[in-house]
């Protein structure tokens, strides 16, 4: 019991241990709900849900479905399974931080970030906002993100997952090279 408590209150686990936990969860998702652990799709479903409320004609397309149209939309504009999963992820992350007592409201807290981009929080927010647009747009093109395509697709041995991982690392390394330059 004491051993269990020490492990839970650790801030960082071995990535292998955390990876085993995620692997078991990915397996359970298929076993219990016949679903995959995707995160990015939830944002698209929510965007569609909100968009259809405020500008129905603009959001009436192949992606979110046409009212009375034939065929299923690519992203259902509803509270889908991934949306609930996303809510869980938020609280799970919070739980992880609370158990290790590292929970804190942060605006720009990463020492490495500050060294590269400077200490101003607005920079972090602007780059995070623009970067997140890039991430979500790319996930829309590829058909998933790191969790929904790379991990969930990879565990089913889908070729798409490995193409995506290859692309992700190729451009990630180049981007890091450009951002860090001599400090790489």
């Amino acid at each position, binding site marked *: 019991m004491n051993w269990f408590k020490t492990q839970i209150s650790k801030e960082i686990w071995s990535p292998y241990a955390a990876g085993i936990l995620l692997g078991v969860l990915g397996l*359970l998702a298929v076993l219990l709900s016949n679903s995959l652990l995707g995160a990015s799709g939830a944002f698209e479903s929510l965007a569609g849900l909100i968009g259809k409320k405020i500008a129905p004609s603009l959001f009436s397309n192949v992606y979110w479905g046409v009212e009375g149209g034939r065929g299923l939309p690519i992203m259902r504009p509803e509270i889908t399974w991934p949306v609930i999963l996303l809510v869980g992820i938020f609280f799970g992350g919070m739980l992880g931080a609370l158990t290790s007592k590292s929970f804190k409201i942060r605006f720009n807290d990463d020492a490495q970030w500050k060294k590269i981009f400077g200490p101003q929080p607005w920079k972090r927010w602007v780059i995070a906002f623009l970067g997140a647009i890039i991430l979500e747009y790319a996930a829309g093109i590829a058909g998933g993100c790191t969790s929904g395509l790379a991990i969930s697709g990879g565990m089913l041995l889908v070729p798409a997952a490995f193409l995506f991982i290859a692309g992700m690392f190729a451009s990630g390394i180049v981007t890091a090279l450009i951002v860090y330059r001599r400090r790489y």
Partner: protein
Amino acid sequence: MTNYVIALILGVGFGFSLNKAGLTKYSKIVNVFRFTDLAVLKFMMTALVVAMIGLYVFRGLGWITFPSVPATYIVGNLIGGLIFGVGMALTGY
């Protein structure tokens, strides 16, 4: 409804594992692209292997059928991945 409860519980576990692996930090994500901290790769690949073994054993036993898998369209997956990497290295998400 049960399905939603399962989603919520799995989500909590997912977020918890990400937090404990340290992947909620900018430096952890970006350092995998600098080859100074390979936690992201270790985490991803361990999850992949564990789930993969389980899935194929369970399918062999006839307990599960695979859900509809993410579609493969080479150009889309590759270009999506290439753009995704830029966002990932910039934001650390």
